[in-house]
């Protein structure tokens, strides 16, 4: 089996895991779910770091640095804003 086929298998199975987990999130938390899963999609940072760090060509290195910056905005911004929202969800707290 070629590497690509194995990766496609992994992708397909992971989609099913995603469906299972996400359908259990209540509507109340759908906005934090979006920003939180957004932060997770910043996993592209891994690819960005590799192309920036290899510096195979000057051009590739420049693209890599910008990619790292973009992905980090996604990761840090996503987790921070999700935390800010979830911190506000409280049970009965009388002044």
């Amino acid at each position, binding site marked *: 089996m070629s590497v690509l086929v194995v990766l496609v298998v992994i992708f397909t199975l992971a989609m099913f895991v995603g469906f299972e987990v996400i359908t259990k999130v209540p509507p109340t938390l759908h906005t934090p779910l979006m920003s939180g899963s957004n932060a997770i999609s*910043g996993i592209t940072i891994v690819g960005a770091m590799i192309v920036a760090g290899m*510096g195979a060509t000057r051009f590739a290195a420049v693209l890599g640095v910008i990619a790292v910056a973009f992905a980090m905005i996604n990761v*840090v911004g996503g987790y921070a804003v999700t935390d800010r929202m979830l911190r506000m969800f409280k049970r009965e707290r009388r002044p």
Partner: protein
Amino acid sequence: MSGWMQLAYLLAAVLFIVGLKRLSHPATARRGNTISAVGMLIAIVTTLLDQQILSVELIVLGGVLGSGAGLWMARAVPMTAMPQMVGILNGFGGGASLLVAAAEWHRLVQTGEQLPVDIAVTIYASTLIGAVTFSGSMIAAAKLQELVPGRAVGFPGQHPINLMLVVALLAAGIYLTVGPDHPELFLALNAGALLLGILLVIPIGGADMPVVISLLNSYSGLAAASTGFVIRNPGLIITGALVGASGIILTQIMCKAMNRSLLNVLFGGFGAAASGGAGTDARTAALTARGVREVTVEDAALLLAFARSVIIIPGYGLAVSQGQHQVRELADLLEKRGVSVKYGIHPVAGRMPGHMNVLLAEANVSYDKLFDMEQINPEFAHTDVALVIGANDVVNPAARNTPSSPLFGMPILAVDQAANVVVMKRSMNPGFAGVENELFYDRKTAMLFGNAKDSLLRLIAEVKTA
């Protein structure tokens, strides 16, 4: 990639799944987000140890810049602007995927050899998905922020032009995969994909943006997965698939709650079709002829103060007037008088899924008072007063009663089953669907006209003295 690194990426993916699972309850959600962030940290540290990485200076430079910008955005953004924020974050994720694909392409082309087909396919797919996600998300965010016109912007022949562009992009991708390397064509592919993202989102109206944001959220996941295919990393693929699935589910939920198909949202032009005298059948005509019953603030306050149970239905009009804190104050006053107060929240209240819940949580409303549509609907029948604040289409009984209405079949809050209904609204203007609302003409409905926040402040003053 060594075996232990593969396992480290797998661990990161597992932590993401555990983190998402914890999002199934507000009490565990914050911890879940932290677990997920730890997973990301593990993935980043693992990558730093990768032998392919020769210098870390550039990575640190990009990382510091990006982290600073991200942190600043996360702190500065007001909760009402959350849909734009998510759109922008999506866009940066897509942009990163695009750049990684381009950098990999440049590196491989430099070697002078023909790209293997399986590598080439993933690079071009990643370019396309990343570019569409980037430009589409940025346009969506600009529309929500009203930097560009929020309404649906149409141009003649937009569907054939988009279709031709898609076909051209696919043809270019296939030609690049099987044919010789062609830098100009690769650049054209990038430019064309960025243009496609803009053209796909620009014709969609501002009120449909929740669906678009959800869909782009899914794309950003697929973009991350496609990067995983480019650099042959299963951790990225698993993670991207998770996010892709999450976006697809949210898109489905939004479409269902708006009574639209995804195709209709993307290519429909809903506002134009619905305004053509829709919903003016005999039944609605008879109702509207009767006129509405207006109520004074004093009477509305008395009705609320002496009720046993009240359900508040907040809509986007409340968020626009920034009256969330006043709603909570009113609810607190009523509860002190022994009135039971709950909130009924429609899935499309606000500008993105769950947006209204965040806005109310910001105003310190306890999350166990926020009820989903399915949970709250059985309770209206034995509720004294339903207080509708700035919501319209989501409480229109035409969705159940009038088969000719464009709203027919849409799940709504059963507000008309409450003993009394008070509707706070600026004017009699119809909602987004452009349809008359039967509820406003119901005998038990009292209309309280005015800006939601002003009316709430006056209600609060009256309830205090009641």
